[in-house]
């Protein structure tokens, strides 16, 4: 029980760190078009050619799988531990909605990850679908893939709206992971709650506005 939950927490925290790096890179998309294109493509090429990053990427895939599998196992077992549900339950009076619905929120994130990997990873790394062109510097034109995708209103909405469940998941997840792994300093926990809120807002709003921005650019 401790072991499984610690895996969810540790992989979750790793994913949280990844999100910071990922958002920082995606912020390039907010720059004027020509600069954004060159910078984004050269950055992406540098990442693909870096052995260390390749290793981290594999760690990332493994983390996502472990996180989902162990989270599913504990959610399933916890539901069994609970057994019959109350006829009337006002748990909104004693806990936040996200803390009660982490699995539900996670399903949306999983859906997002699958579509996201199909849109980018499958296209650029596996070369599935039409060929991706190169830019003036000879770098694979990842910017074009992004820009093309976000000019489709449905994908733009999909990428923006699904950042809402991500934000909710992160708000509870970040605090919870620290406590699962044994952070118990009382004043620290109050600070942690604020940091989690700030982190969740920055991540969901940050990732969420980029598709909108590109669409209307």
């Amino acid at each position: 029980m401790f072991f499984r939950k610690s895996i969810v927490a540790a992989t979750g925290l790793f994913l949280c760190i990844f999100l910071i790096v990922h958002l920082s890179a995606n912020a390039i998309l907010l720059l004027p078009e020509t600069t954004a294109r060159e910078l984004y493509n050269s950055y992406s090429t540098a990442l693909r050619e870096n052995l260390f990053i390749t290793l981290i990427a594999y760690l990332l895939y493994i983390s996502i799988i472990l996180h989902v599998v162990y989270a599913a196992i504990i959610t399933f077992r916890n539901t069994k531990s609970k057994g019959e549900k109350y006829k009337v339950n006002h748990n909104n009076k004693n806990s936040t909605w996200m803390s009660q619905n982490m699995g539900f929120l996670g399903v949306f994130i999983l859906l997002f990850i699958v579509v996201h990997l199909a849109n980018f990873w499958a296209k650029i790394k596996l070369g599935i679908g039409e060929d991706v062109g190169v830019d003036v510097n000879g770098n694979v034109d990842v910017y074009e893939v992004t820009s093309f995708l976000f000019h489709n209103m449905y994908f733009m909405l999909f990428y923006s709206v699904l950042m809402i469940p991500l934000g909710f998941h992160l708000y509870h997840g970040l605090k919870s992971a620290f406590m699962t792994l044994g952070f118990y300093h009382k004043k620290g926990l109050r600070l942690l709650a604020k940091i989690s809120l700030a982190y969740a807002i920055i991540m969901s709003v940050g990732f969420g506005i980029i598709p909108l921005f590109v669409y209307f650019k």
Partner: protein
Amino acid sequence: MKVTFKIWRQENTDAQGELKAYEVDGLSEDMSFLEALDHLNEILVLKDEKVIAFEHDCREGICGQCGVFINGRAHGPHNNTTTCQLHMRSFKEGDTIVVEPWRASSFPIVKDLVVDRSAFDRIIQQGGYITAKTGTAAEANAILVSKEVSDSAMDAAACIGCGACVATCKNASAALFTAAKINHLNKLPQGQPEAHRRLLDMTAQMEFENFGSCTFTGACEIECPADISISNIAEMNARYVKAKLFG
């Protein structure tokens, strides 16, 4: 004062239970919730119907017997209180009040509102005590304990074992109870010699009893009559990780 109780009636552990409605008149706002149930039971006796089984003992908030789920909350609408300390003035004339037993598969229903909480006793049996020869009481200042340590041990020791934490938890986790019982002893010098074994044995029993895992919804610390802080669970986790990694 007149209210409608909807109360969970279940003959025994294996029987099918259901909510049954009772309109009850003649209540006073000054009655405790348990007295209102007593009042209803007296009416049922006169009508030659089976009385509602519910647990209680001290009726002053210290024994932990009186746990029931009232209108969707453990021990009723207020935070950090027991059912016996809840009064009818917390409800309005004409209210419908739904009363259910604690729900957790590790707390099987015995009858109506009574559940079997002996899983808690078995966790205590794994180390919620200090193995020491009981002679005469030792001189109080023989072992010095600092104020901070004694305060935080006392905060954890306040747990009355009512089971509200398990009852309110969506995972039916007993982490708050177990953490309180472990930390209370492991913080004090008297608890040190057995601290390690206590931590591992009591948490192992908690898992063996099939309580769920803690996901820090925080519901338990809101419903706990003894105000046990959820940071106790994080502290238990910290010591557990340390014990597993460094022996």
